[in-house]
């Protein structure tokens, strides 16, 4: 793939614009809250698009196209089962507590609801996960640019990370959020022509369905038996593992995305942020799943296009999207496609870095390291932590380059920590009897249960590092089972320990627990202005989409 002047010009203009946004925002940064939490003044359309864009990292975009090629239309489950329901739940039921409690971060909510040790555990694990995740994403981008454009690995890493550092350092969270909106439009509009032209080349959806085996074009029909579908999953495992534990665990508790809703102007906008974001999320499979399915159909048709092959003769699914861009995009448009890939990386990395600096400053530095300093001091710390976060990400990218297994290892640890988390929030928000000791030991037990389950099960050659007592067909199925077990263990441990320990007085739980919180006034207005009915309409739309592609 060779770039021309027009392609480079588009890439350069993109860099100028994202840095320009940082420069423009810099003048508005006066306090640590401006820098770390945007002083809660961002309009709804921006928070909604930033909410979805923070999750639209390079691994998400490239990974979902790869999954589309490998597993077919079943990949839509990550959206229509594994995202929308949780986003709606977050908007309707959980945002009133996050926003209404005046917490500046998710760990800070845990401190208000439970205690300091639960906040500390969540803050430290989250900070470590985000910064390492950012580094792995950086490694993936540099590796991809090295393969498809033959760009130097080191230069790619330093330029990409450097640009994210400049605009997040200048404008903090606001700058990251504004750029995420630009990046969202760039990803969607930059990849849409590819879908249209490739779909036309493949003869339309009807022709694709005729070419591919039926399990590649049905989302649910072959999930009655794990052996009948390409993912190797039973529908119950999918619904509980992905649709409940992993999905709610990520969308409802991960500060990276929840932070975008917490900076809304008022409670109503905060609740609407994930609800409105669920509309583009619902349609995202058109951009990131369909190209993968089309790629396989094109190969079956004997088209000139083919997915690159690895040394062992297997298809390199990760290269599906870059190879489609290289095949269909002429000069100029190629620059748009490459810029869209870079934008997806940058939105993911900036999201991680801004969440990391807020959690580190608010939940680790301020309560544990240096208390009661001036706001100017914490603003300075926030900026230093931004730079440090980027530098740690760069170091992680180099470690990932040297030790390929570190990616798998870190993903595994993330799963252990994230899996049980939603049980803590669910009990904390909806059962006033839940105690801080219950939440803390529930999280510890859930994480240990996740590690133990992984150590006792084997899937695709991974796991069973203690003993092989149960074999699972796919790695994805194993991840869902690990998450499910950890959630159940956390749920029951939290209940048992809570019943044995003393709860907080009810007066301290007002605004933090469902039964002790007044419902917002607008919940009683005309039905079409209410959040609940809007969420129900979107819920029905998601169910209809599942039925259409059943």
């Amino acid at each position, binding site marked *: 793939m060779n770039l021309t002047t027009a392609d480079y010009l588009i890439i350069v203009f993109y860099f100028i614009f994202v840095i320009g946004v940082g420069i423009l925002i810099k003048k508005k940064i006066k306090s640590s809250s401006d820098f770390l939490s945007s002083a809660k003044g961002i309009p709804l359309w*921006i928070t909604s698009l930033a909410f979805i864009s923070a999750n639209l990292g390079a691994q998400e975009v490239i990974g979902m196209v790869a999954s589309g090629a490998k597993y077919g239309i079943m990949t839509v489950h990550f959206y229509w089962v594994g995202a929308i329901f949780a986003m709606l739940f977050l908007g309707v039921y959980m945002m009133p507590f996050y926003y209404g409690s005046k917490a500046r971060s998710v760990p800070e909510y845990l401190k208000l609801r439970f205690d300091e040790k639960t906040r500390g555990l969540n803050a430290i694990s989250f900070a470590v996960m985000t910064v390492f995740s950012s580094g792995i994403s950086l490694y993936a981008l540099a590796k991809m640019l090295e393969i498809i454009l033959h760009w130097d690995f080191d230069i790619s890493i330093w330029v990409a990370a450097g640009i994210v550092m400049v605009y997040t350092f200048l404008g903090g969270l606001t700058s990251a959020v504004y750029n995420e909106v630009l990046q969202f439009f760039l990803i969607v*509009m930059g990849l849409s022509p590819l879908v249209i032209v490739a779909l036309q080349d493949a003869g339309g959806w009807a022709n694709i369905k005729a070419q591919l085996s039926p399990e590649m074009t049905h989302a649910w029909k072959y999930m009655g038996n794990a052996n009948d579908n390409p993912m190797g999953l039973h529908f119950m495992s999918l619904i509980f593992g992905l649709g409940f534990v992993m999905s709610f665990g990520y969308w409802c508790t991960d500060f990276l995305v929840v932070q975008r809703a917490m900076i809304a102007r008022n409670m109503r906008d905060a609740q609407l942020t994930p609800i409105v974001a669920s509309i583009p999320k619902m349609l995202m499979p058109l951009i990131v799943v369909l190209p993968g399915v089309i790629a396989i159909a094109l190969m079956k048709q004997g088209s000139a296009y083919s997915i690159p092959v690895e040394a062992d003769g297997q298809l390199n699914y990760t290269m599906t999207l870059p190879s489609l861009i290289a095949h269909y995009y002429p000069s100029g448009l190629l620059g748009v496609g490459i810029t869209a890939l870079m934008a997806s990386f940058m939105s993911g990395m900036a999201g991680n870095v801004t969440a990391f600096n807020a959690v580190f400053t608010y939940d680790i530095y301020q309560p544990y390291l240096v208390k009661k300093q001036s706001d100017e001091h914490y603003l300075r710390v926030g900026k230093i932590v931004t730079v440090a976060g980027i530098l740690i990400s760069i170091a992680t990218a180099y470690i990932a380059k040297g030790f390929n297994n570190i990616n798998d290892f870190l993903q595994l640890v993330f799963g252990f920590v994230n899996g049980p988390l939603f049980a803590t929030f669910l009990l904390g928000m909806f059962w006033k009897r839940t105690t801080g000791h219950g939440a803390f030991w529930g999280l510890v037990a859930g994480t240990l249960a996740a590690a133990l389950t992984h150590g006792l099960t084997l899937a695709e050659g991974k796991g069973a590092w203690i003993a092989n007592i149960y074999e699972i067909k796919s790695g994805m199925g194993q991840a869902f089972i690990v998450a499910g077990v950890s959630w159940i263990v956390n749920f029951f441990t939290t209940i048992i320990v809570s019943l044995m320990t003393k709860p907080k007085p009810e007066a301290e739980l007002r605004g933090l627990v469902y039964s002790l919180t007044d419902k917002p006034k607008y919940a009683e207005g005309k039905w079409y202005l209410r959040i609940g009915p809007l969420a129900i309409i979107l819920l029905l739309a998601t169910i209809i989409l599942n039925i259409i592609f059943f």
Partner: protein
Amino acid sequence: MYKKLNQLSFVIGLFFTIVAVILLLNNWLTVGGGKISLYTAVVFAVFGVGMMGVRGRE
């Protein structure tokens, strides 16, 4: 102009308009740009100009 630059919709619109102009010029000056570049440029231009015209609180 500076006031406009503080409006995100204007900045996004300006970016897509510039990219549309680059695509159109590239399509005009080079051989083999094809319809896909032209159509994309037109869509980007319409979107860009539309976004620049949007007035909203930001």
